[in-house]
């Protein structure tokens, strides 16, 4: 294995890991505040990419504007999903809520398939152009660099929002303890809506980032969803630094294993990483003892 193959693998691992992490952030956000393991997170992202390509772009907006408006639109969709699918029957347990999102995932997927063809690949416009930069023998495409930049920016934006704004504070309070938050005057309902808006907007971003690298097709996010969940679990399901670390570890490990051995060791390796982390730290990498509750 030569150095440039290693470097290329590393870069693609970091980019993929960043995407796992970003989708994982959305998963952790929803899980820690509303207790829903959202299996529709991936299909929401795919739907977002289709929405931009098929509905928003043809309106005649510029790519950047279309990007922004898709993220906003998907945020609104997140609120709709919350009101229709998640809020009814609040006595339901989290297993039932997870099943509802399984149904939602199936629904979004079949809508995509009906409207835009099953696994029909579309070339998706990239925000970053098709060029590449060379650093010695290492070639980094604009796509990779741009994707990474947007993922990092999105994550930083989210952390700033989560840690330094009033709605973010409310989310943290609800995540810590819903009852106590309600007693302290946090509007839990409104916070939940906000959580779904933010998380869905984040996953739309992931969809828009993945689509140009891969192709836009109805199976766009399927490989990413399980990885994002794995990253979230490596991070402890409640921890944002944890999910980011989990995503990056997973992405880099996969890429290096692929480069060093073969792509066939990739899936087993992701599983082995998960198992290893969980056996050493059952509550996840970054879980404090307070958070060692049943997930």
């Amino acid at each position, binding site marked *: 294995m030569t150095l440039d193959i290693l470097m290329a693998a590393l870069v693609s691992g970091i980019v993929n890991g960043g995407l796992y992490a970003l989708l994982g952030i959305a998963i952790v956000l929803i899980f820690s505040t509303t207790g829903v393991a959202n299996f529709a997170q991936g299909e929401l992202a795919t739907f977002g990419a289709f929405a931009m390509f098929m509905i928003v772009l043809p309106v005649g907006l510029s790519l950047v504007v279309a990007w922004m408006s898709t993220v906003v639109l998907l945020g609104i969709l997140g609120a709709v999903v919350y009101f229709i699918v998640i809020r009814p029957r609040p006595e339901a347990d989290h297993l039932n809520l997870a099943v509802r999102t399984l149904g939602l995932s199936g629904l979004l997927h079949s809508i995509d398939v009906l409207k835009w063809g*099953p696994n029909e690949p579309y070339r998706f416009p990239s925000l970053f152009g098709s060029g590449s930069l060379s650093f010695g023998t290492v070639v980094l495409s604009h796509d990779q660099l741009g994707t990474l930049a947007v993922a990092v920016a999105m994550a930083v934006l989210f952390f700033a929002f989560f840690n330094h704004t009033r709605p973010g504070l409310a989310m943290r309070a609800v995540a810590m303890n819903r009852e106590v938050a309600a007693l302290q005057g946090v509007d839990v309902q409104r916070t939940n809506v906000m959580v779904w808006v933010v998380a869905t907007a984040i996953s739309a971003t992931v969809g828009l980032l993945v689509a140009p690298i891969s*192709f836009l097709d109805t199976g766009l996010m399927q490989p990413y969803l399980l990885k994002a969940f794995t990253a979230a679990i490596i991070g402890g399901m409640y921890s944002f630094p944890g999910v980011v670390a989990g995503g990056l570890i997973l992405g880099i490990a996969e890429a290096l294993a692929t480069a060093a051995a073969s792509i066939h060791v990739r899936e087993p390796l992701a599983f082995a990483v998960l198992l290893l982390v969980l056996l050493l730290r059952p509550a996840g990498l970054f879980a404090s003892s307070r958070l060692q509750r049943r997930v």
Partner: protein
Amino acid sequence: MIDPHCSKNSLPRLRRRAGAGALVASMALAWAGAAVAEDGVSANEIHIGTSLAVTGPIAVCASVGDGASAYFKHVNDAGGVNGRKIKFTVLDDAYSTQRAIGNVRRLMSQDKVFAIFSGCGTATGAAVLSVVEKESIPYLFPQVGLDALVQPVKKNVYSILPLYGQQLAAAIDYVAKSQQPKTAAISMINIAGNEVWTAVIKDKLKALNIQLVDEQLIEVTSPEKAPFVTQMKGKNPDMVVMVDSAPGAARYVIEMQRQGWKPKVITGINTLTDESFLRAAGNAADNLVVAPAATLPPTDPKAKECVDALAAYDKALQPSGFTMFGCLGAKMFVDALRRVGPEPTRAALLAQLDKTSGFDSGFSGPISFGPSVHQGLTAMYPIAVQGGQFKVMGAPVPLQ
């Protein structure tokens, strides 16, 4: 039940209440009935059907069904075959083998179709094969790259599509002559048959004195091609032999473009000559891909018959290699049925198919069957990608 055909069975069902004796009686009745008139044939209709992945992971190739439906409508509008219209029922299996088997059982036992016509996808194709193999019902012309369909020959199973091994051997021969590659690499998808195809490619390369420098096996579920391309770039072969689905191959080609490297030529199987490959790969495949096609591309003037039929059937459908293939199968079927004459039976249909010699559809190579050969297409078009379009390089090249 939702299915109108259920009503047919209401009479026997009443009898069965009388007990086991009546049950046996009614079953005997059903058998006796089968002997009188062939299943699926009525005075003004011939009913055939299939199970296709209309939804699910490989639903792309379900447009084979659209192409066939369109051609049947075209024939029906012109009066049908020997006075009978063709009714073609497509059931969705979402690429689940259990549902495919259920669908085929339904077609046979409830809808009582005359033949299982068309199909798509290796796993479901194998599943359907496992059912029909033991029956007398014809199973005709699926778009399935499964050698077991016709090797060994099964009396009621016919395939038009040349085996991928045959395609690869012919394609490599053709490309070797025109491009003179010195080195080659294999990019193979991990589906049933990959070992056989790899062996065929290796034999061919050896015979042509082309050095094999890289060999890759790619998981169906893995959309990411970057590491493969990086690896191949390091080996820098003149020619890449690519066996992959149309979107999978397109991804590979685009990744090559992204990494700024390409071989002299890429060849492979007929997935590279489907419109969905072209749509996805765009200019990345220009002057790079030369591959075999079962039919002419829909843009060719001679493909007009099928393209027009498709437009008349449903304007929203896009013509592609798959619709053309469906159309080809339908045309072959109609031709055999015409030859059978006014009293179609399954046995007569199979007998007529065996007599097919050099059938010329006008948009494919000649098709021939015989008692010991149930794989029909004997030649394929060499097709190259130029300027974002498929270009037919010449007359169909005979397969070995």
